[in-house]
């Protein structure tokens, strides 16, 4: 795969040391190249990359609000089309809150209308920009500031919302999951998404050192553990065809992934086993 | 200024009739205004629409409370709506009916079996254009030529032709009635 040496997200941004979001954006833009317009939802990424009068973006970039990135991108795409600029790629970067929660309606509309754009949800599994509050993408058992563990609680008590399948149900031509820890897999998917005519959705898992509670050096390691334990599955749905794109040689125990993070530290063995059996059920079905 | 009130049921075309009348009056060189009393009523519910015609530009923008003419698209409305409300002395009512309708408050009542004409010519009981033909014949407030022109502009092709024919028939009948 041709990958640009050029960086389209400049350093000097205000992300935490070890930030997974900026890795994801860097990798995606290396694939998409300079003839790209990016739209961001409000969130960490927007705040850390555009502290006026500076910007990290080397390509045109626009942000309007939290819940409307897909709608803004719809307008961008339509306007480019109206000017005959159909070779320009439109990419959206929205966090899990901006995608699975507050931005779901606008995203659903954009996907169903068939705009030719790529929506990348960079999922760090909580509202990190505002200080680690629970989102619809927060996994079962995670302790956040609004789903804290306590005497009566083991943290988040609902499973993670299945965003990629919600997108797949829209019948869009391309849906994929990805992880920043598997850059080749991710970049291949971005390339496919760019080449396909119509809307594409990529759900990118991206560990967050601050929100998940681990040493910043371990960002890639955590993403890898999520996949190697079967907690996060890499797949794509191309024209309705479901395909797992990566299978761990030997699936690791979920406990290893959970124990590496502060947000799961409070879980009892019983709760960890419950999570394990949930992961097992899915992985067995998918032959992982 | 001539003020007209249309009474109909949702779906019968009272609003369209009011607009055709306004456009026809404009065609005649008059100033005009038409608007519905727009409810959330659905098909079948009583509705009202209004038309104003004048030699001067029309400014006022409130409902018509004292009409010179009232057009009733459906005699069943007499049971539920006071179609005579505010009618000016010497005012006229044009009503689609094949029943006996009583004269009330000295208003001049003109009965038109518009449904009968509609079924004959259009094959469907749509009466708004027919009543406009009758209106032109009864009141002389608008020319039948302009009514026919706007009907044909509003409904294209065969439907327009048939509606125009039906309107003309009602117009002639109304003239004979005088």
């Amino acid at each position: 795969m041709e990958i640009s040496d050029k960086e389209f997200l400049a350093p000097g941004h205000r992300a935490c040391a070890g930030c997974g979001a900026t890795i994801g954006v860097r990798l995606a833009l290396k694939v998409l190249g300079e003839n790209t317009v990016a739209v961001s939802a409000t969130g960490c990424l927007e705040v850390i990359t555009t502290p006026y009068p500076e910007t990290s973006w080397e390509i045109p970039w626009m942000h309007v609000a939290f819940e409307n990135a897909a709608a803004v991108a719809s307008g961008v795409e339509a306007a480019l089309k109206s000017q005959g600029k159909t070779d320009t790629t439109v990419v959206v970067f929205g966090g899990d809150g901006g995608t699975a929660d507050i931005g779901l309606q606008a995203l659903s509309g954009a996907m169903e209308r068939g705009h030719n754009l790529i929506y990348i949800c960079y999922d760090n599994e909580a509202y990190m920009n505002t200080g680690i509050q629970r989102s619809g993408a927060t996994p079962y058992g995670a302790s956040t500031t609004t789903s804290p563990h306590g005497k009566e609680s083991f943290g988040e008590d609902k499973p993670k919302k299945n965003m990629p399948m919600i997108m797949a149900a829209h019948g869009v031509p391309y849906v994929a999951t990805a992880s920043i820890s598997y850059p080749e897999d991710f970049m291949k998917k971005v390339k496919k998404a760019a080449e396909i005519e119509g809307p594409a959705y990529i759900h990118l898992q991206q560990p967050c050192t601050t929100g998940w509670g681990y040493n910043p050096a371990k960002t890639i390691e955590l993403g890898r553990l999520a996949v190697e334990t079967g907690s996060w599955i890499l797949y794509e749905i191309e024209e309705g065809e479901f395909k797992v794109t990566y299978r761990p040689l030997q699936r690791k125990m979920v406990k290893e992934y959970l124990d590496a993070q502060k947000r799961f530290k409070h879980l009892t063995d019983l709760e960890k086993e419950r999570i394990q059996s949930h992961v097992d059920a899915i992985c067995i079905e998918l032959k992982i | 200024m001539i003020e007209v009130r249309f009474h109909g049921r949702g779906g019968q075309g009272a609003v369209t009739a009011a607009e055709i009348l306004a456009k026809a009056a404009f065609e005649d060189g008059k100033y005009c205004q038409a608007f519905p009393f727009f409810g959330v009523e659905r098909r079948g519910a009583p509705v009202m629409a209004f038309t104003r015609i004048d030699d001067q530009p029309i400014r006022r923008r409130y409902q018509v409370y004292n009409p010179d003419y009232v057009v009733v698209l459906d005699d069943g409305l007499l049971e539920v709506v006071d179609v005579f409300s505010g009618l000016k002395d010497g005012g006229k009512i044009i009503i689609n009916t094949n029943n006996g309708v009583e004269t009330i408050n000295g208003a001049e009542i003109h009965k038109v079996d518009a449904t009968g004409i509609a079924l004959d010519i259009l094959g469907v009981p749509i009466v708004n254009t027919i009543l406009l033909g009758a209106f032109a014949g009864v009141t002389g407030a608008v020319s039948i030529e302009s009514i026919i022109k706007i009907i044909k502009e509003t409904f294209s092709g065969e439907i327009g032709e048939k509606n125009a024919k039906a309107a003309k028939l009602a117009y002639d009948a109304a003239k004979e009635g005088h």
Partner: protein
Amino acid sequence: MVSIGAAVKEPGSTRQNKTGSWRTFKPILDKDKCIKCVNCIMFCPEGCVNKDYDIDYDFCKGCGICAEECPVKAIKMERE
């Protein structure tokens, strides 16, 4: 004077902000050991390892991902 709509017309201008000062530990690459696997280039959140495997210390925040992900342990994190 703020630009109209606070738009920023100088792409990549966060380069004015040298985040190297955030660092506590500094990655030192032993180029003799390096096998040029691109892991450090790919995984750097700052994008501050160039194609010649030079680390831009003006921006490196010292997160240590590069050292952690180096398959031959060619990068060591040293106290500033």
